[in-house]
């Protein structure tokens, strides 16, 4: 009898950390090794800068070139960090689609002894890493070329770190919630991540305060963690200007952190339940090894 036959199944199963690490590495390779590092760097810069530049020009044609104003700084920072929201959502759904439709490996992942949600989260890490790079580039562009008043000495690093970590955790949960929907979608799924990410822009308070929206839409925004997260990021990066942004002015930084923590816990539970439901439907319908060729 060979050793493989005598090894209990539980011992052969890799831990969550190993699954996460391996899938993150795989995601990074898929994301980055299609070209040389120089072209990859240019590719990573052009898209976020162009998207930010659309807002810059919109601001320019209406308000003129006052890029140091509180309105513009808040808009710019919100827009820069919103890149991470799209990346988190897109990361999971693209991981599923790439593996199912393009590489046709999702079925093998499913029969491998690993936790699929952990694998999917790992796959999304690469796009989040690229997005972090894009956020840095966008902020750097704002500081160097638009002379935006972001002083590193004035940044509240502790608040920033806490907000960033909690924000990333909740975004990954949001990504898993929306991305796992991809498991049961046959057509148009490629645009799901990007479109949902862009759609959430309205409810995030990233580029305008929620008070601009009609009241029912403001409620939707308040039920999502993104607006709280972006408010904290603004208050951490540009304390005075961030505090002037007309959102949650009656809430302290600590209260916002606690709200974000609450959202993270609730969204983690919701993500687990939603993933379980879509996973069940996908297995029942035979969607796991489906190739739509759409």
């Amino acid at each position, binding site marked *: 009898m060979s050793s493989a036959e005598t090894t209990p199944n539980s011992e052969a199963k890799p831990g969550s950390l190993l699954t996460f690490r391996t899938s993150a590495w795989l995601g990074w390779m898929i994301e980055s090794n*299609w*070209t040389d590092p120089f072209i990859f760097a240019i*590719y990573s810069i*052009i*898209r976020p800068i*162009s*998207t930010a*530049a*659309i*807002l810059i*020009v*919109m*601001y*320019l*044609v*209406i*308000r003129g070139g006052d890029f140091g104003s509180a*309105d513009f700084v808040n*808009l710019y920072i919100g827009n820069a960090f919103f890149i991470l929201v799209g990346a988190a959502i897109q990361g999971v759904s693209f991981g599923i689609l790439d593996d199912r439709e*393009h*590489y046709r490996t999702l079925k093998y992942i499913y029969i491998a002894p690993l936790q699929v949600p952990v694998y999917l989260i790992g796959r999304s890490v690469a796009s989040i890493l690229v997005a972090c790079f894009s956020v840095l580039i966008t902020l750097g562009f704002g500081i160097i070329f638009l002379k935006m008043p972001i002083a590193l000495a004035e940044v509240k690093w502790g608040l920033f770190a806490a907000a960033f970590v909690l924000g990333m955790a909740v975004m990954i949960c949001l990504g898993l919630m929306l991305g796992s929907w991809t498991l049961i*979608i046959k*057509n*148009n799924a*490629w*645009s*799901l991540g990007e*479109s*949902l990410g*862009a*759609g959430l*822009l*309205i409810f995030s308070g990233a*580029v*305008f*305060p929620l008070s*601009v*929206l009609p009241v029912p839409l403001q409620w939707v925004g308040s039920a999502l963690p993104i607006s709280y997260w972006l408010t904290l990021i603004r208050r951490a990066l540009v304390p005075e200007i961030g505090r002037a942004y007309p959102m949650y002015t009656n809430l302290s930084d600590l209260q916002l952190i606690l709200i974000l923590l609450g959202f993270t816990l609730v969204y983690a539970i919701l993500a687990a339940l939603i993933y379980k439901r879509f996973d069940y439907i996908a297995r029942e319908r035979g969607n796991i090894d489906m190739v739509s*060729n759409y």
Partner: protein
Amino acid sequence: MALQTKVTRNSGARLFLQSVIGRAYPRVIGTQRDLSWLFFDIFLPFLTMVGYVYIYRALKAPEEYIGFVVLGSAMTAYWINILWSMSSQLYWEKETGNLALYVMSPTSLMAILFGMASGGLFSTTIRALVILVVGNLLFQVSYTITSFWALFLVFVLTMVALYGMGMMLSSLFLLFNREAWHSANLLQAPVMLFSGFYFPVSAFNFWVAAAASIVPLTLGMDAIRQLVFPSTALLGFLSVKLELIILAILSVLFLAAAFLTLRRMERLAIKHGKITDRLD
């Protein structure tokens, strides 16, 4: 006695037309059969449009700018269609194994591309119209059309030039491997910036706007804005007449370039026998 069935094969213009209709069919009929596009291709892009409208509202911009966003969002549907369903299409066909069948079939690839373009134009026009109508109803955009025929001509020439460019790019993208997806992704946002989808292209200096005019949507949208929002005519980049002439030239150039690049690609496919291989 063996029964002989006479098989008639189309050729020439009839085969060309049949191929165009055959390739356009799934794009036109697919729209009717699968209504999920109403959510993915209309509702979700619609949310993006609402986002841009509220940015202008927050900046207290004149109401005409809301109209610019609604119009730009409708035209975005065409640009997305060109990038993902024209330029990248032959690459996808290669990945799914259809391209080799196209090359082997007795029809011309130009007919296949015309079919893709006409089917895509039809379904995208429906999407653009829905976005335009709902956007207008929701945000009360008012238009004053100064010349219906000029508007019609601008739209037709813009579409001919744009889809000609898409046909040309589809051959060029075929020479890429995994870079095809990234190239399309890379082109999306910069063109939306420099073509002025959400603001007048005259916001840039003359040479930047002139360079951006290589994408037909730049001049097309600029001319349309001048024709439907006369109060903002001063924000126009060039006169409508000049833009019409340039669009006509671009139409001819892009169609000719599409024909030449496709022929070159076909020759490469036959000579090296690799271009139709699926590359994972």
